[in-house]
């Protein structure tokens, strides 16, 4: 359906252009990237990690609201919280005790869930080395014009992030995966956000260009949760993501808020941990980059000044000959012939 729509607008644009032969004004192309993707990963299983699912769904909600379509969001959730029997309000995940925002929503597509969320699948997704037969919704089909938002949340330590409490990805592995992406021209720019304990250790080993990395805490610090909901019985969201969502809720697709502001969403007295930022790999000044460059979406529109012919394709309309045959329903229960009589 969505594909239909995209094609449709594209053709309409090209069609109208062929009629008027527009001159493209100089300020028409403002951004360097041509499409947006988001990889949002919750690596924690078990009910007491409810808050990590709430974290990742908060970001999912924001990017979806700001225009990235589901086909370009890879959402990985390691456990089911919304329909968990322990959830007193089925099919909902709220970001705070007052139930302001149901971050789960009524329209959600989870691409990797449960046991599928593994280090192997995550690295394969990033580097594009997926098994044959992997459906499109599980592929990161980015190109050299893609801006990617990578958001990770879970339990981490100095230099690693745990997946499902049974395995872990190290910062070196992550750095190598990103370098492989760069060499394969799989991205234009990456905004890497990680909300775990000692989060800044995750980006220390990055060495590929065009990455802006944000971490909820520095090495040696814990990332803390925001508050507990007694009805659910566990902490329901982490501080950093809570304030990030607060900020993102105020962003509109047309807003001019910059990444510089996003980096300041959680000062130390709110987060109780220091938000770490790594700017040296990023070429632009975050204060001049709109938030929408990563959280919003550009439609893949190709501009052309040439006249395109969109007359109907000459399809060889060979009428498929349907032979008349006698069809039957099969008996639904076998004829019973006893083996023992």
């Amino acid at each position: 359906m969505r594909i239909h729509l995209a094609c449709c607008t594209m053709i309409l644009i090209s069609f109208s252009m062929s009629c008027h032969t527009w001159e493209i004004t100089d300020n028409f192309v403002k951004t360097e990237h041509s499409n947006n993707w988001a990889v949002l990963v919750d690596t924690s299983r078990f009910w007491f990690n409810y808050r990590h699912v709430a974290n990742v769904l908060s970001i999912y909600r924001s990017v979806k609201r700001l225009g990235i379509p589901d086909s370009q969001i890879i959402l990985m959730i390691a456990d089911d919280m919304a329909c968990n029997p322990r959830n007193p309000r089925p099919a909902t995940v709220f970001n705070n005790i007052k139930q302001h925002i149901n971050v789960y929503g009524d329209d959600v597509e989870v691409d990797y869930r449960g046991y599928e969320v593994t280090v192997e699948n995550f690295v394969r997704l990033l580097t594009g080395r997926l098994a044959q037969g992997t459906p499109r919704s599980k592929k990161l089909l980015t190109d050299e014009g893609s801006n990617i938002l990578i958001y990770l949340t879970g339990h981490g330590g100095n230099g690693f992030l745990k997946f499902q409490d049974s395995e872990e990805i190290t910062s070196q592995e992550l750095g190598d995966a990103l370098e492989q992406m760069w060499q394969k021209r799989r991205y234009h720019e990456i905004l890497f956000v990680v909300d775990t304990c000692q989060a800044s250790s995750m980006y220390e080993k990055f060495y590929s260009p065009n990455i802006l990395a944000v971490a909820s805490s520095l090495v040696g610090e814990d990332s803390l949760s925001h508050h507990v909901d007694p009805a659910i019985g566990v902490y329901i969201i982490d501080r950093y993501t809570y304030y990030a969502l607060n900020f993102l809720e105020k962003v509109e697709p047309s807003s001019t808020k910059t990444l510089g502001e996003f980096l300041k969403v959680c000062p130390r007295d709110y987060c109780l941990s220091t938000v770490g930022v790594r700017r040296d790999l990023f070429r632009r000044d975050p204060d001049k980059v709109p938030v929408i460059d990563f959280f919003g979406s550009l439609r893949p529109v190709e501009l052309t000044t040439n006249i395109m012919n969109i007359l109907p394709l000459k399809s060889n309309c060979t009428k498929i000959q349907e032979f008349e045959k006698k069809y039957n329903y099969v008996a639904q229960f076998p004829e019973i012939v006893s083996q023992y009589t």
Partner: protein
Amino acid sequence: MTISRILVLFTGLINIGTCNNAYNDFFDEELMLKPLSSDHVYAYFQFTTIWETENRVETLQHSHLFPRGLGEIIGRHNVEELHVTLTEGLWNYQKWGYPFHDAGPGAEVTAWFNKDVTNIEEEWKGLTNALAGLLCASLNFVDTSNSMSPEFTFRLTSVTDRPVNSSHLRYSSLPREIVCTENLTPFKKLLPCDSKRGLATLLNSAHIHNTNYHSIGIHFRSICRNAACTRTSLELRQTVSLIYDTMIDANQDWSIRKFFGMGLKGACPLATLSNIYVDISDNNTNHIYELTPSPSAKVVSLRGGQQNEIAVYDIRAHSSRGIFNIAAVHSAPKNNAIYYPSILYANRYIIGYGQERGSLVTKLYNNHWQALDIILLENIPWYLLVYLNSITITCNEQRVHPLAQRYLPGRERKSPYYLELILRLPPHSITKITIDMDYLFLKWQEYPPDANHGFYMGPAIVTALLPIARNYTALPLDGSTITSSFNASRDAYLVQLRTESLLISLPTPDFSMPYNVICLACTAVALAFGPLHNISTKRLVLKRIEKDWKGKLFSFFVGKLFGAKKKQD
């Protein structure tokens, strides 16, 4: 609205561009509300798309009402018939009767491939992968180790022009699969009106997932196009089964708004039929209630000895006056229920303690006055070693022999244990089937992250032909819509029911030990290697004991001392 209009315009354009066929497809949306004697209400949605065309790759690429995403998958993998269900909860056959479509807990996929498919395993893998992407479910975990081709239980429900055998059938169940909004969202997107208009607007995730049982299903097959059945059409049924509990409320009143959170705005404009049916057979017997608004028509359905009275609402007629809501208002408290239990049901459990071995017990209950022939399909995962020689089938303390038996032993990591039995259940009897099994010890990396939660084992499937249609709802084989089940008397009524899925805790190793174990076991090997190497390569020699300076000093003094003593002597 505008979007769908553009879409219609656009798809229309493409069709004009290609073959200028008249649309030969229909879409029907129906909802059956059936109050049950156990104070539950069974809500069954069925969205039926019938497309008068052949099942070919080329035709399935351009569709009108048929969902293109699904059509492409069906075409590419040469699927003849497909059933996918995603279910949460356990259907209570004893109290709730038989559902329209039976489904086991978690995810289940059954597919028949075309007769000219040669590499079925590959197509099956591809199909389940594609469906996993389409439905946001982990169906990609389906592989040969958990799929099988049962001979009796599943029969082709499509029309066919040649005899079929089960080699082109694959069945798999993933009982662990969770079902939530992310599965419902793509399900709704397959409908022609999405969830924007029509009955699908009632499918709000928060109200669906707080039910006692919910199941969504996609059923695709070929059916007869004409009475003589010389041509075939494609039929796609998307179903949602929900069981609502009305006991929560003291007066037991229910309404569409209460169940689904909102009333109905109108019918899907693309639908030829959009009806709501309410089964009011038990009104004035078990319950006394009044339906508001009063129905457009009442139908009496006589089927297999069971009489049902059904109120029919045509949504188009009612929704013109704004939002439409059907409510049942009880005027008197519930009577003592006249309660007809289902004539056949089953349950299953595991006996034994410890993580070493156990026995699987399946109990089949026949409440009918006649003997019933049933097929029992046991699908036992490979990590339970089954001893077929231990199978005992007893009924009233007497051993029973199956009428037929099919068995394929499982192989570790390759295929499950497949056991299919045809049994004749004596009238008014309980038949008990016991089989022993051992629990396997897996490699540490084969355990899931929550290994101590246990492993799920899919349900057993019981298939039977019932002589009467008591508590029976399913559509007849040649029917496509709910209407076709009214007054559809047949010789026998095919029913399929599933037992509980079971949780088994396998013995677990210590997951933190790999390095230690490797070191220790290698040390043991080295302990043997060292001495054996010495013995076989070296010679025994007698050597003087060379002492270091301390020892020398010591022996010197000792020598002096004792030497002096000796002299004295």
